[in-house]
């Protein structure tokens, strides 16, 4: 079964996006992946990432410096 969770806390641009891209390449369309990051730039980066990969950013939260993103891979 493909991995659908990614923890890139502690890593800074561009590594979160790099790892997210690889994660998405390994799952099929429609799969929801959950990503944890700590880089404040990741909010902007993941918004752009979703637009470029035709994915849906279902939810994003922040709690005590940790950002979580739920992304559904588009077609």
């Amino acid at each position, binding site marked *: 079964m493909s991995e659908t969770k990614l923890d890139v806390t*502690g890593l*800074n641009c561009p*590594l979160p996006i790099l*790892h997210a891209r690889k994660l998405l390449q390994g799952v099929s369309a429609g799969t929801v992946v959950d990503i944890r990051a700590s880089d404040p730039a990741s909010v902007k980066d993941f918004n752009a990432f979703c637009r470029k990969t035709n994915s849906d950013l279902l939810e994003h939260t922040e709690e005590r410096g940790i950002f979580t993103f739920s992304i559904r891979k588009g077609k």
Partner: protein
Amino acid sequence: MADIDPAGLVAAASFTLGLVFGATSWISGFCAMGALSDILFLDDWRRLRSWLLATAVALIGTQGLDAAGLVDLGRSVYLGGPLSWGGAILGGLMFGVGMTLAGGCGAKTVVRLGGGNLKSLVVLLVSGLFAMMTLKGLLAPLRQAWERLTPLGVMGGSVAAPSLPAVLEEIGPPEVAARGFPVALIAGGLVWWCLKDAAFRRSAGYLFGGLIIGLLIPAGWTASAILGADPFDPVPPTSFSFAAPIGGALIYLMTFTGASLSFGVAAVAGTLAGAFAAAALRREVRIEGFADTGDLRRHLAGAALMGTGGVLALGCTVGQGLTGLSTLSLSAPLALAAIAAGGVLGLKRLETGGFVAAINSLAGRGEGRSGGVGGCEAPPRNAGCEAPPRNGGCEAPPRNGGCCG
């Protein structure tokens, strides 16, 4: 009536301009490495457009100041002394690779530190150390030998200065055309290319970020050359740069009682304060530390490369890419191209896990863009927290089987 100290005026003006630089960078996300990674990994060219808009605005403003006789660019380090093509290229490559390892260039490091990133504090200290070692310390003899080996001779030394207008003037056109034509062509071309993209025009942060940062360059020249004009102590005019000034800031902190505040050091301080102010007001300050040993190693290597390369190339992304280019110095495009090449190579190395794989990927061979993220960059499971990561950073093989590049 009390005498106004020109050096003090320059420092105050430079600090203020730095405040604007830092705050603008934080809010807009202005970032050279970010521009390259956006293109490589997101096919998003807006951040590069932001950078190039700044370049165009800086060029127009700076050349205007020089043409009006308000600033003598010929006395700056970019035009006033011997240049080295080897320094520009090797230094630029080192800086470009270094910034991908250290999470951003010198300016970005200062801005990130303002946002609470303690990794950037380490980068600042190490890059400053290496910058001063390269400028005047242990590495300086190597730098000088390399520069002597690779001088940028221009037309046998017959031109007035190693700048594009001077070369053109030597060939034929009068000064007005020799300056006006390249400025119109380069700046005009860049502005057209930037604004023709609807997505960029809609991105207020990138558009105004580029505009404001671009205006800060001639503002810096003005502060340095006009406010700082002192016939008893003439100082070469300058504007924003971060490679050597970060080193200078460390020296200033260590020798405060006997030191004077230069434009560069005051600008670094202002940038730090401006970024912190913006981050604090937006409640975006986050204290960050290293994820694991691999993260520390990358940042240390990146910092050393940036400090050494930035001085060798006569400037960093801002120092050569914005300020140097604004003088139309012949070394600036060399340095900037090398920084960009190093940045692309460094980013590809992060993606593929090794320099050879990166080069193969760029050449269209090997795994290409969809290649795995291998080696030391595998994500630690709980990075940034107190418990050790499960894979121990670079020391254990990552899940995708890549090897440390």
